[in-house]
């Protein structure tokens, strides 16, 4: 039996701005619920009356512990205190929150305070006695397996399996257990200036040197493909050309270089 804690924050739909369950946190809860022989507890620091918390309960949680932290306050000390009381072997969180600052610092601060190991970008978790094997989902579909000593904080990214849909009856049945806590205001966030985001034009690399005409030409000239063209080669010649091109651009293992792109 291993003790698992899932940290759940409230998400925000990117287009409409409506509150919802946070995508990555729900994936994390999904991983926790799928884990065999695990005792899962869930924590949220924030408003216990938030309606979107019911979506997490609908995924199959019996209870959700909510630490009543006012908006704009730092949730970390309250979460650390609550987790210390439970002493989980594995803490599962999302890589970034969708609402608020979303800097992804919360899990690292919790791990630092509790003295746990951290593994990021998790796509799958498998627990053995005292250790966990975590498969990390990296860009371009690559995967890496790491072994970490428990207790650990594991951060889930979007390569993890999608969260199940919340069931309405379960969402109604589940209990939200509020815990009163004291929290301080986050001074750094209060000092930050917030304004609506405006997309900036994409940066172009401005060529230097040469005359003004040459610089203008380098910027505006359409960059066509390299445009190598073979017309009606014999198949072997065509195959060699393709292979040499792929090897040169490192999409294919070249002669002699170990494992190519890894």
């Amino acid at each position: 039996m291993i003790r698992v804690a899932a940290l759940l924050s409230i998400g925000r739909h990117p287009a409409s701005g409506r509150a919802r369950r946070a995508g990555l946190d729900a994936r994390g809860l999904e991983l926790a619920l799928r884990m065999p022989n695990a005792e899962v507890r869930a924590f949220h620091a924030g408003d216990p009356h938030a309606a979107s918390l019911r979506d997490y309960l609908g995924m199959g949680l019996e209870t959700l512990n909510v630490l009543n932290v006012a908006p704009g306050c730092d949730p970390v000390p309250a979460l650390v205190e609550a987790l210390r009381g439970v002493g989980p072997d594995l803490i599962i969180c999302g890589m970034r929150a969708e609402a608020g600052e979303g800097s992804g610092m919360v899990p690292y601060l919790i791990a630092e305070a509790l003295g746990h190991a951290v593994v990021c970008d998790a796509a799958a978790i498998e627990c053995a006695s005292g250790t966990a094997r975590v498969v990390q989902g990296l860009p371009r579909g690559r995967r890496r397996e790491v072994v970490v000593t428990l207790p650990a904080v594991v951060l889930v990214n979007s390569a993890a399996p999608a969260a199940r849909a919340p069931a309405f009856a379960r969402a109604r049945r589940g209990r939200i257990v509020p815990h009163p806590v004291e929290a301080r205001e986050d001074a750094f966030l209060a000092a930050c200036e917030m304004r609506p985001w405006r997309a900036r034009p994409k940066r172009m690399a401005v060529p230097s040197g040469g005359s003004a005409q040459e610089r203008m030409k380098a910027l505006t000239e359409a960059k066509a493909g390299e445009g190598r063209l073979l017309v009606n080669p014999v198949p072997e010649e065509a195959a060699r050309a393709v292979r040499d091109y792929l090897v040169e651009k490192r999409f294919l293992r070249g002669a002699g270089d170990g494992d190519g792109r890894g």
Partner: protein
Amino acid sequence: MKMRRDPRSEREARRSTGGERPRFSLMVLKPAVGRLRRSPRIVRQAATVSISPRLRIAWNGRVAPQASGAVLAARAPVETMRVVAEPAFHVLVVPDTDGEGGLSEIDRQLIAAGRSLADSGGGAVCALALQGGDDLGGAGADRVIAVTGIEPLAYDPEGRTAAVLTAIAILSPRHVLFAETPDGSDIARRVAARLGERLFAGADALEAGSDGDTRALRRAQGGSLAQSAKLPRLVSIMPDAFPLHAGLPHEGRPLDEVPMGAADRRISASRPLTVDPDTIALEEADFLLSGGNGVTDWQGFADLAEALGATRAGSRVVCDQGHLPRERQVGASGTLVTAGCYFALGISGAPQHLQGITRVGHVVAVNTDLHAEMIKRADLAIVADAQAVMPALIRLLAERKGGGDD
């Protein structure tokens, strides 16, 4: 300055009042009234700086006219490298690793961002060389610290964190810049948590604040808000947010190597897993083998994908016909792919298909039609029968695997 005659105002001066029709007297000549017109020729002559070797005119009048030739004679001796001998402060740059040992694009952007911070106050950019052997000076670094005791290419976030902490302790930099990439952002947060300092995560831009300080800008609240704050010590920087260093190369002088420092390692083993390319989502895949209506040998297509280690994809026609599942369709009504390499077999290149591959790096196309749009789009275009090229390529790849070297 001599003024030109203004015939209109002279004519106005001759107008006599009263009467139905306009009348002008030829006898009275009043002095010209109104604004005097300037003579463009005379103004231009006064603004001409030099005529040879080429005409130079300074309309703003800020350049005093010189004798021609003097411009060329007085040229300063050519500088080839910039040296910051006594820096007022240090900016520490922690490069990301791209897994192959080279300086990646984001590393150069990081050093350039550090450069702009250092140049605003006479500081020096100090790059941490986790892998060694790169042209850090050319990218804009003044100093390079090599770290001993860490595996250059291994996945070791805890060791790297210890190395960065040691370098921070030695150098006490004013700013530390990290890359907001999967591995870089992990190390940045570990360092910030260990130091108990606030990390400004994922800075998108630096801007001048109202009271002369530098402020950093990032996207918060799922991207809908811009959060700006006075630049703290620890900053991680988004890829493609900063331009590369374009000026002279910097010194890149190696400082004393630093030992990594004690790392308490709890991530004990790591290894890359081989992934079945067909399980990778289309928009994530790096190498796509895509078939169109010109492919008839679908078994050969599957064998080729396996031999290349490529993810299979197709045009709408082949998905409609059921040769590939629907989620493998590339194009406007399918997936917009971002692969590094797109290998198209027998695809005509309809606009709806080309829309799906605008963000692809390299395109290789095989088609029997010389005038197909796909052939025009390709970096390597081959006018041939796909059914003949596929087995030839499979044979060639098998030969290499069996024969070892060639």
